[in-house]
């Protein structure tokens, strides 16, 4: 036994009206809002970790990246749709993005009321912006503050539970009925029965091989806890997915992945190649030929910024330098996009820069201190990360959801079939990384989307109160066996070998994880190929994924911790399979810098300005991949 945690396998049944799976920004928003509208309902949340620090905001955040400023007439939801549409190269659900734009401010104003320190201009009271869409915060305690509001509003909170499967109704496979999972600390088997379920269980890291190795595997830019559970839960019961080919790569400080927003937007640091040339706009001619009008977008789209960096590195002009040493030397006020000013002596600049790093990525300080990397003295190296699969940053993988009924107003039935943010499974809602084609939510937008889903779920429950879903208890029993099976596999298999870490009878979860990362990296466009693949490679990747799936029943777990990793791996494999299938279907290069189809190197608006969607059929175990049309809400 490596750990003192136990696996008891006792069964606990929990009834809920609204079950929220997850515990991050989106889940906390859902909990708070669902309680407001459903005063007498049982609102239950189940989180894989402790809610005070769970999710991508674990270390804090130094900016709330989505805020319109409607109160001060700064931006409209229409402006936001246009910005996101350009950044995502012409594809997104405008109805969903508009909806985030009109609701996100109310979440940020609530955060301020709750006690989140937001930088403000003393005379006007306006929030101080980092860039056009971001407001600066002292956000070390962002997550515990938001968690406090959620926790107080819930009927019950179950922490340290790994939810493994969603359950559909015994008589209707297209209706949600609950979920099952197990407690990490005591191995209790949990059966949740719920009329409505909101999935807000993060996107995925470690689908693709990380650039760092050994201990550095954990220094993915997005947290290791993000195991693709939003997708691994929804895909197997047949929820329609969208944009799973739209993986995310971001340009960050090399290795430590410090954020760069303030560095570029406020401190106005320059990025150059090895020879001191500011390279970002120096490939526009080639980019224009391949990717068309989107190259002229202002600001320059996130994926194209990566593309420029990639071109420099491939041409042998790395390292790419971030010249903070110049930006930190200046002795003049720091002026932002609103024309507001902050004191800007070298000391002020250093204090603000470190607040920015420490408030969301303290790992930056650990590295700098050990490596004597003082940004006030020397430039930092910049590099693009490994790819991630998520739905809340400059990316949009997730479930295909019903939009707000007042935005598309019945003119697009494929966009609207039920309550806002309901998936194609009746009663199953999503928020944050779980909802696709709705990018640039970030922390504040994810919270707002959680609130939208929370209210919708209450509307749904009240309509269906006389009609409770029923569980197929035989299926639940079968799942219980399946969930704890890796413990038995390990026990049976370890006797054959003199050491338990290698056996011909099982794969430990780390073995399976490395296999997944390697095949995705080499065949599906990871960093080692500079994010490039083609039909042949993707097909081999799919075949290798099949072989990995055949081995998943032979996952072995030595203890409860391994068991957690086994089920996270399964969610990652579902996510990876969707990524490869979607990538095969889209025969163009829509988001260079994120992914290149070398056999279709151009962006092709004529044939591919549409969504690539998929649906897995749990009965036949077959995937159906298809396209959905683009609907414009906001004119150019």
């Amino acid at each position: 036994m490596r750990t003192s945690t136990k696996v008891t396998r006792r069964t606990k049944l929990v009834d809920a009206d609204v079950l929220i799976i997850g515990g991050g920004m989106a889940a906390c928003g859902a909990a708070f809002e669902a309680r407001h509208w459903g005063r007498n309902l049982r609102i239950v949340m189940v989180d894989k970790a402790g809610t005070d620090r769970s999710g991508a905001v674990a270390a804090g955040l130094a900016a709330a990246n989505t805020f319109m400023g409607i109160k001060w007439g700064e931006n409209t939801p229409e402006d936001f749709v246009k910005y996101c549409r350009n950044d995502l190269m012409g594809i997104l659900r405008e109805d969903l993005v508009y909806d985030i734009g009109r609701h996100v401010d109310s979440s940020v104003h609530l955060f301020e009321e709750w006690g989140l320190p937001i930088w403000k201009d003393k005379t006007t009271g306006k929030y101080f912006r980092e860039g056009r869409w971001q407001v600066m915060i002292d956000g070390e305690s962002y997550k515990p503050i938001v968690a406090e509001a959620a926790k107080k509003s819930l009927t019950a909170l179950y922490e340290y539970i790994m939810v493994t499967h969603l359950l559909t109704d015994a008589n209707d496979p297209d209706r949600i009925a609950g979920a099952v999972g197990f407690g990490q600390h005591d191995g209790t088997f949990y059966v949740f029965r719920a009329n409505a379920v909101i999935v807000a269980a993060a996107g995925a890291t470690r689908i693709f091989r990380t650039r760092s190795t050994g201990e550095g595997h954990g220094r993915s830019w997005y947290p290791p806890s993000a195991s693709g559970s939003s997708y691994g839960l929804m895909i197997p019961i047949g929820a329609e997915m969208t944009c799973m080919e739209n993986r995310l790569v971001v340009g960050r400080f090399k290795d430590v992945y410090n954020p760069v927003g303030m560095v570029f937007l406020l401190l106005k640091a320059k990025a150059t190649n090895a020879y001191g040339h500011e390279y970002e706009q120096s490939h526009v001619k080639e980019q224009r030929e391949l990717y068309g009008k989107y190259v002229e977008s202002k600001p320059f789209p996130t994926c194209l910024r990566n593309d420029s960096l990639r071109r420099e590195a491939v041409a042998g002009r790395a390292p790419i330098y971030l010249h903070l040493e110049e930006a930190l030397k200046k002795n003049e006020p720091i002026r932002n996009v609103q024309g507001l000013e902050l004191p800007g002596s070298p000391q002020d600049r250093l204090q603000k820069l470190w607040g920015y790093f420490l408030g969301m990525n303290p790992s930056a300080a650990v590295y700098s201190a050990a490596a004597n990397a003082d940004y006030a003295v020397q430039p930092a190296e910049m590099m693009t990360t490994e790819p991630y699969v998520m739905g809340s940053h400059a990316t949009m993988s997730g479930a295909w959801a019903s939009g707000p009924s007042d935005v598309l107003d019945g003119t697009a039935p494929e966009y609207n079939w039920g309550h806002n943010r309901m998936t194609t499974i009746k009663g199953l809602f999503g928020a944050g990384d779980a909802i696709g084609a709705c990018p640039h939510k970030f922390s504040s937008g994810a919270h707002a989307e959680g609130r939208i889903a929370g209210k919708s779920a209450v509307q749904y429950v009240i309509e269906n109160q006389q009609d409770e879903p029923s569980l197929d208890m035989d299926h639940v029993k079968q799942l219980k066996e399946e969930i704890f099976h890796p413990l038995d596999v390990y026990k049976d298999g370890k006797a054959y070998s003199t050491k338990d870490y290698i056996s011909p009878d099982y794969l430990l979860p780390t073995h399976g994880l490395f296999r997944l990362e390697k095949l995705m990296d080499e065949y599906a466009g990871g960093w080692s190929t500079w994010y490039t693949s083609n039909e042949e490679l993707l097909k081999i990747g799919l075949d290798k994924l099949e072989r990995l799936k055949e081995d998943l029943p032979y996952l072995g777990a030595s203890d409860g911790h391994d068991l957690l990793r086994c089920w996270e791996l399964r969610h990652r494999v579902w996510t990876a399979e969707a990524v490869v299938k979607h990538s095969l279907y889209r025969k163009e290069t829509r988001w260079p810098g994120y992914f290149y189809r070398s056999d279709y190197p151009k962006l092709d608006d004529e044939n591919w300005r549409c969504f690539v969607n998929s649906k897995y059929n749990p009965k036949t175990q077959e995937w159906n991949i298809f396209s959905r049309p683009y609907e414009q809400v906001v004119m150019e």
Partner: protein
Amino acid sequence: MPAYVVSYKCVGCGDCVTACPQSIIHIDPGNRKAFNIEPDMCWECFPCVKVCEQKAVEIRGYSDFSPLGGQVTLDRDTKSNVITWFIRYKNGKEYKFTYPIRTTQWGSIKPAHEYAAPSPEALKTHLLLGEPSIFGLDHLPVPVRKTSKER
């Protein structure tokens, strides 16, 4: 390694176990002290460091790209609501920075059910709690949109 636990300081209370978002801090059944069971799943996100009253949890940089040496420690004070960070470089250089963490008392947030109960009619709208007055409007924005036929 990234987070590790200082043997003589740890009292085995388990606060870091419940704080860790990556589920990697466990209690050793032998000596009843905390340990990092999976250093390569550590994000160096610091909740374990912040929660430990004994200051027994520290971070050593990722071995594949970070040299040995240097130290980052902190004091997070939930009474005066500030955090102070101490960065000591390997070459002896030191930085100390203090930032606010919260403007209200911990535990002071009003839960959703303490707001005035909404009407059944309001449930049917697209408005969320506090809207639209919370962002200074008297209505929720709706896009001006041409119909499919006009486009």
